[in-house]
């Protein structure tokens, strides 16, 4: 009987004719041979994200107004360099374009990193895991009313924290994790979904986001100052401001853009500096999780280190966690006749290490062994009969989907089809326009053109938190919508 199992290994999937799969030195060869059959995990990713460059770049489903953000930055800086810098270099110093250039590079790089980095997406629970959790809920089930609330309480640093069950991802969300309905993912240390950046801001890209808004506020302030100086110098000698503006109309454009941007961006930077110093997320701040408004009076932030320096350092300079979704790994082939030999997939690596793919010899061995321990025969009944105490659901053992759960939210990504990226674009276009229109229509005090705070536009008043936050008086609604829509 055991011999039969051996021969079920598909020799085609191996680069060598030996039936026992060897160490994955031939990952690259295997990869080529399986290219027609196996797909990469990003292709079957159940969230609403889009992937480019073979999974190296990840963006949210809706790109929001990222093109507008990039456009505004490029246009303003371009005009600055072309129209203002020559004059200022002649009259002042050559360091002006140098500083402007450095700031511009920082802004663009951190913006791209914020947009294209995995914010800390949690992969969905495997079917086995989901079943185990369900079993625990049912066994401890005290649901006298339906539906059961599905929360779990844990003690974190002597503070009671409620963990909610995510129905989409089929797991109890870790603390500070939230489900983004726009991206349809649970994101760790979820801050907010930023339409300006076109991505969620979470654990992994919060430092990029912070760098972006801080450097952008410096850049806008710098350009504003330089343009004002430029116009002032031109208007010297009694010639007047109008004369100066006529000579350099581009400066007027820059002045307008920067004037309206600088307040909102500076305000946003101040707000996020406050959040960083107290180790809070925007999500928690809005909900008032730790300020005692929506609960017991004794709530303190259990994650704070109680000193500003330590909080700042841990948030901004802490170790960079790895990406938990293995975008570029191969989906394990789920056919029950094909056994472990076909599951020699790429190791779990962050995106930037795709060049070192072949290096993880021993890890592959275990990885492919452990990644989908599906039984080859798919006949769990004898086992269940042998040990009636095993309450494991046989139906789930034989479920070949060892990859993250595809049963929910996988609109385009059913593993039975081969989903291209394109349909997602069209799907979300109208959503984006709807959102931007609804944002602008909320009585915004500012013109729609400015580079301003993400999703802060409406006229709601902020909760009573310290710190200058003029830019967030509004647009709680879109964010609240997205946050309230979380389940």
């Amino acid at each position: 009987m055991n011999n039969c199992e051996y021969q079920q290994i598909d020799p085609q999937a191996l680069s060598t004719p030996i039936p026992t799969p060897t160490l994955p030195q031939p990952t690259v060869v295997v990869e080529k041979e399986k290219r027609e059959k196996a797909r990469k995990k990003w292709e079957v990713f159940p969230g609403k994200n889009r992937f480019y460059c073979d999974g190296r770049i990840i963006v949210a489903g809706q790109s929001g107004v990222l093109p507008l953000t990039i456009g505004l930055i490029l246009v303003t800086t371009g005009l600055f360099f072309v129209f203002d810098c020559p004059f200022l270099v002649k009259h002042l110093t050559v360091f002006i374009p140098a500083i402007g250039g450095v700031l511009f590079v920082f802004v663009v790089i951190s913006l791209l990193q914020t947009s294209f980095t995995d914010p800390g997406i949690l992969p969905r629970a495997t079917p086995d895991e989901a079943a185990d959790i369900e079993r625990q809920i049912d066994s401890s089930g005290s649901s006298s009313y339906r539906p059961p609330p599905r929360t779990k309480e844990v003690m974190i640093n002597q503070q009671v924290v409620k963990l909610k069950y995510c129905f989409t991802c089929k797991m109890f969300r870790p603390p500070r994790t939230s489900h983004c309905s726009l991206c349809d993912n649970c994101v760790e240390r979820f801050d907010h979904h930023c339409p300006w950046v076109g991505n969620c801001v979470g654990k992994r890209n919060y430092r990029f986001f912070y760098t972006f808004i801080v450097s952008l506020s410096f850049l806008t302030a710098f350009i504003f100052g330089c343009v004002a100086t430029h116009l002032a110098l031109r208007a010297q000698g009694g010639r007047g401001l109008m004369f100066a503006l006529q000579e350099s109309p581009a400066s007027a454009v820059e002045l307008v853009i920067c004037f309206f941007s600088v307040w909102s961006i500076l305000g946003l930077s101040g707000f996020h500096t406050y959040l960083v110093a107290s180790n809070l997320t925007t999500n928690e701040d809005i909900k008032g999780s730790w300020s005692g408004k929506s609960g017991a009076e004794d709530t303190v932030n259990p994650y704070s280190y109680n000193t500003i320096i330590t909080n700042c350092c841990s948030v901004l300079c802490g170790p960079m966690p790895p990406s938990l979704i293995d975008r570029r790994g191969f989906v394990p082939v789920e056919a029950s006749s094909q056994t472990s030999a076909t599951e020699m997939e790429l190791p779990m690596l962050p995106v930037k290490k795709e060049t070192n793919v072949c290096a993880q010899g021993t890890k592959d061995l275990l990885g492919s062994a452990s990644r989908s321990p599906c039984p080859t025969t798919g006949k769990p009944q004898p086992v269940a009969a042998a040990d009636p105490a095993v309450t494991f659901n046989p139906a789930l053992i034989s479920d070949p989907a060892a990859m993250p759960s595809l049963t929910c939210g996988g609109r385009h990504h059913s593993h039975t089809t081969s989903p291209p990226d394109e349909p997602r674009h069209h799907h979300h276009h109208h959503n984006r326009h709807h959102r931007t229109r609804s944002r602008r229509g909320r009585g915004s005090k500012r013109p729609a053109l400015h580079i301003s705070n993400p999703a802060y536009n409406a006229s709601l008043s902020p909760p009573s938190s310290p710190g200058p936050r003029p830019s967030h008086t509004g647009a709680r609604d879109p964010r609240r919508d997205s946050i309230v829509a979380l389940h």
Partner: protein
Amino acid sequence: MGRSWDFQHDNDPKHKAIFHNLQELRHSASLANKVFIQRDYSEGTTCRFQTKFPSELDSRIERTLFEDTVKTLNNYYAEAEKIGGQSYLEGCLACTTAYIIFLCMETRYEKVLKKIGRYIQEQNEKIYAPRGLLITDPIERGMRVIEISIYEDRASSGSSSGSSSTSGTSAR
């Protein structure tokens, strides 16, 4: 017939192959159950796993061995996520280079993750596979759980699961 997990003393070359290749474990065994060790959030959001011994493993492995494994893993993760001198240096350096350095350099976290992978591999080979268990690296489950798969030897179907652990003593 290979009823026991005593691969080291079994002279059948086929069973030697089973021992040396964890993937072959599945050909002679069938998955009976999976145990999930959940995260322990009592110290915050840093990665720690509960060391509570699950009852399903009672007859399979000694409690101390299991707890040692989990504690070592917890220590590894604590080392990876430690905020201290080196992580600050790494963070500040990355900040000054606009985080481009993350594209070129392997972070400390990734180095520790590799160590963890090797450790789990070694634990599986030495301790868990001989007992018919297999630990899945938590990184493959989103760092949410340690998944331990319990295998039943097919040849022993019809008898209870306890019999397959008889060689636990000799497999060391």
